[in-house]
């Protein structure tokens, strides 16, 4: 399992589109987890102007990912993808750490 977090080309393009709508010029995509959801943990995704000192910063496909240390433990190996189309789910976390996932797929446990 690669100890990094990746982002697919499509997801990177979509993230750039969202950032431009919000007129962010310099930005990073903050990915993380928070407590809650049926299974215990849910994913969080937001656009941040800059990283925080304790963040891990990863750059792929032209996008900077900001990940706080505690979230990183649960996300290492995850690829952020984008599911397009009418029935698409939007951003999808493919997380190899997730042992169980709730019915709707938005929360997981490790």
């Amino acid at each position: 399992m690669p100890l990094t977090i990746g982002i697919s080309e499509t997801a990177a393009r979509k993230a750039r589109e969202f950032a431009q709508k919000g007129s962010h010029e310099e930005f990073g995509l903050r990915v993380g987890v928070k407590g809650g959801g049926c299974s215990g943990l849910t994913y969080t995704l937001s656009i941040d102007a800059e990283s925080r000192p304790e963040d891990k910063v990863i750059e792929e496909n032209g996008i900077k990912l900001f990940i706080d240390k505690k979230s990183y433990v649960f996300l290492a190996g995850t690829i952020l993808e984008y599911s397009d189309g009418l029935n698409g789910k939007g951003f999808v976390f493919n997380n190899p750490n997730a042992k169980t996932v709730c019915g709707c797929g938005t929360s997981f446990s490790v």
Partner: protein
Amino acid sequence: MMPPATAASLREAQLSAGAAFHPGEGGLPLPAHFGDAAREYRAARQAAALLDRSAFGRLRITGADALDLLNRLSTNKLVDVQPGRGAATVLTTNKGRVIDLLIVANLGEELLVITGPGSQARVAEWIDTYTFGEDIAVEDATHSHAMLSVTGPHAAALLGDAASGLDPFDFAELELEGRRASVIRTDTLGIDGFDVVTPAEHAAAVWLALADRGAVPIGALAAETLRVEQGVPGCGRELSEDYNPLEAGLLPFISFDKGCYIGQEVVVRLNTYRKVQKRLMGVALDGEKPDADARLTADDRDVGFITSVVDSPALGRPLALAYVRTSHAEPGLTVQAHSGDRVVGGVTVELPVAAPSA
């Protein structure tokens, strides 16, 4: 016997009033009785009793995200709990099993969370596990504060105006002998009950003031008798990761429309598809008390097991709390409790049982 007007410590005040101590749940020495458990029981049923509930954990939680995080971790809807109000909620695992029953009171500047006896560290650790960057700080106030409960039909009147208007789990500030205390209506024994939380250094004075107003000191034995008669699940007995909140009768503390929380999917499915396997009931017993974990059979088939047992003054015979299979959980079922080699007959009853006539 009336306690002396001053006492250096809560324990000293209780000893002077005739307390016999035993190691309570959570490891604190607590009064088992004050010489006459039957009289203590009557005080709680008919007047006002004073019970030391300090063994139950207390956490002070501050931070802008505190209510939102607890809302995501437990069964009840907490995000709307305004200052001065509170709620009971169940902390559940992702399999929908009970970790603890919590009372969350919004004191304005902070939340006061009452946990089960001795489970405050576990609850604090659980909250910490699920804290990612939220603005929240958890402080264990179990030993820095005492919790004295005034319980019974006269409890509200004894505490005065501040307490008498409180709905369940609401909070008020109270002044007793010049000392401020927080009062939360918790009804923990299934009858009117108010927990008075006060800094440990004021505990003896507050205890004496409450006794002076007429609250009769009672010990854990009388409280346990009431708890079983009222069908209130107890931490470590009826409440543990062996059970889900629906089996334990905690339905009033579950919100089905608040959205996701840990364990929600399982709890909702159990409820929607009526998959709850067993539920808490009373068993009125004919002989000597069986063991507190006796197996129950009906027509030689396993139908459940006992979790707590007391001598019930209301029934005039032993009464058990038991988990009974849903298929058999109707009052009037003849059962046998298997306690070692002994078999004790009994019949299932709905709880709470009617109070004994005065």
